[in-house]
């Protein structure tokens, strides 16, 4: 199977092909330097802020039916009301907990399998094809079976999240290990490193950029899986809130939950980027000091 033939020196593993522009764009284009870093920062906020203002104006003018798209101010009021009197915070907590638990399990399994396959051709022969096949199954297709197995409780939701997290972590761990520079491994041998030292000093640090790309992608799929899981048979959580709101045509609540998903997605990405900056300070493409 060729998607695990990993000899090219290419950092872009799965999920890395669409990096956010703000991160990968060369910093010192001529116009950007004229604006200054603050200016560019400000500029990146103009479009979204403008969009919200136009949306608010249209809603206030009555051109947008509240049934179709309630005004941003209305959504904020709803958020406040739900947070103080309703169960919003509780639902948010439940969702985050599910995501965290699923992520922890999936990341552990993915990393363990990835390390195994990364180091051993025999393990690759035994495991890789199965993982690749499981990876190809869409969440929605797997959902009925998962529900038959685990019911519609917490286990089913955490399982789905874990399933979504496992493969990106797995693939990027294998990739990272396989593309560690063989010349550095040779050096490790010359310096008399033991196998364990070789792994700790050379292989894992060398694989880390790729593994962190996997983490970043996994955070996104964890969310995706959670939405799917929570829209079916949930009694709590953000997804449940959405489904509940649909029953009562509460467009404001639906929009609110979508915004919450977006915010958490952005937060997850920020965490991943923070990790990259901290752990890859040595790397010319990631480090804080350039």
């Amino acid at each position, binding site marked *: 199977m060729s998607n695990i033939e990993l000899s090219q020196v290419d950092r872009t593993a799965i999920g890395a092909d669409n990096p956010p522009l703000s991160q990968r764009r060369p910093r010192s284009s001529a116009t950007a330097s004229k604006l200054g870093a603050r200016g560019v920062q400000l500029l990146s906020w103009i479009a979204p802020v403008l969009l919200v203002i136009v949306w608010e104006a249209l809603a206030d003018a009555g051109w947008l039916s509240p049934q179709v798209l309630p005004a941003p101010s209305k959504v904020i009021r709803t958020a406040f009301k739900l947070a103080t009197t309703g169960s919003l915070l509780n639902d948010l907590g439940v969702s985050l907990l599910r995501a965290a638990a699923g992520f922890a399990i999936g990341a552990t399994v993915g990393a363990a399998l990835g390390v195994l396959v990364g180091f051993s051709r025999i393990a690759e022969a035994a495991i890789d094809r199965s993982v690749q096949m499981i990876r190809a199954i869409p969440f929605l297709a797997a959902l009925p079976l998962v529900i038959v197995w685990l019911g519609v409780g917490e286990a089913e939701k955490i399982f789905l999240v874990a399933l979504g997290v496992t493969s990106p972590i797995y693939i990027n761990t294998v990739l990272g290990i396989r593309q560690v520079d063989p010349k550095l491994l*040779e050096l490790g041998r*010359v310096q*008399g490193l033991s196998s364990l030292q070789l792994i700790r000093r050379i292989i894992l*640090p060398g694989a880390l950029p790729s593994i962190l790309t996997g983490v970043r992608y996994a955070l996104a799929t964890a969310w995706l899986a959670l939405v799917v899981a929570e829209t079916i048979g949930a009694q709590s959580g953000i997804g449940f809130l959405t489904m509940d709101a649909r029953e009562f045509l509460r467009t404001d609540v639906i929009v609110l939950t979508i915004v919450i998903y977006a915010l958490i997605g952005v937060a997850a990405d920020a965490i991943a980027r923070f990790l990259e900056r901290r752990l*890859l300070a*040595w790397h010319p493409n990631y480090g804080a000091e350039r």
Partner: protein
Amino acid sequence: MNVHVAPQSSTPFESGPAVVVSNLVRSYVSRVVIEKLNLRIDRGEFVALLGESGCGKTTLLRALAGLDPIQGGRIVAPRRPAVVFQEHRLLPWDNLWRNVALGLQVQDPRARAAEALTEVGLGDRLEDWPRNLSGGQAQRVALARALVQQPELLLLDEPFAALDALTRIRMHQLVRELVANHQPGVLLVTHDVDEAIALADRILVMRNGVIAFEHRAVRDGSTPISRAELLSELGVVPHSAS
């Protein structure tokens, strides 16, 4: 691995062989690259190995380093040799002192690494990243990393080939000093005839898997081997008008 490491304790300044190679055979699937080669390098001796591309000189070095299996003969070295490659091979994720201390098993590796880095003129850059170094500086760190192991045999695989001419000359001086201080046996594999003449006590030319020519430099006043003589051994015939 077929390198026989004799258990033996020895101080670095003792004289005696740093490595003895007898009847070494090294072959790939169908091609014999090294055919019954014999070589002895003493501690404190600087040997340069010249030869055309593909003559087997790097293969010999890799065999001595224990990186490739050998198909016959014996390599006897009292201790594991240290190697400096053509590329610096610094770990990009470790700062300089950690790079130098890689594989070092002593009480205070940082202090030892600092000593070694000071010796190559980079004592003030302990915490710096390899990517902030120039080519010459990186190669100096690689030298420090090799010497901090106190090797009895130092293998240099065209370590200056990628450097500019000025930096290369500075590196020659540095290497000469370091070798004088540490007294390892040195095997320098190089393409550069001038480099060999400038540095080596003994110059070997390898051809068809054996050592075909040997010249022992007698320093102190005697005329050194001429460039032309060495080049003709390497199969380079200078243009002449006659």
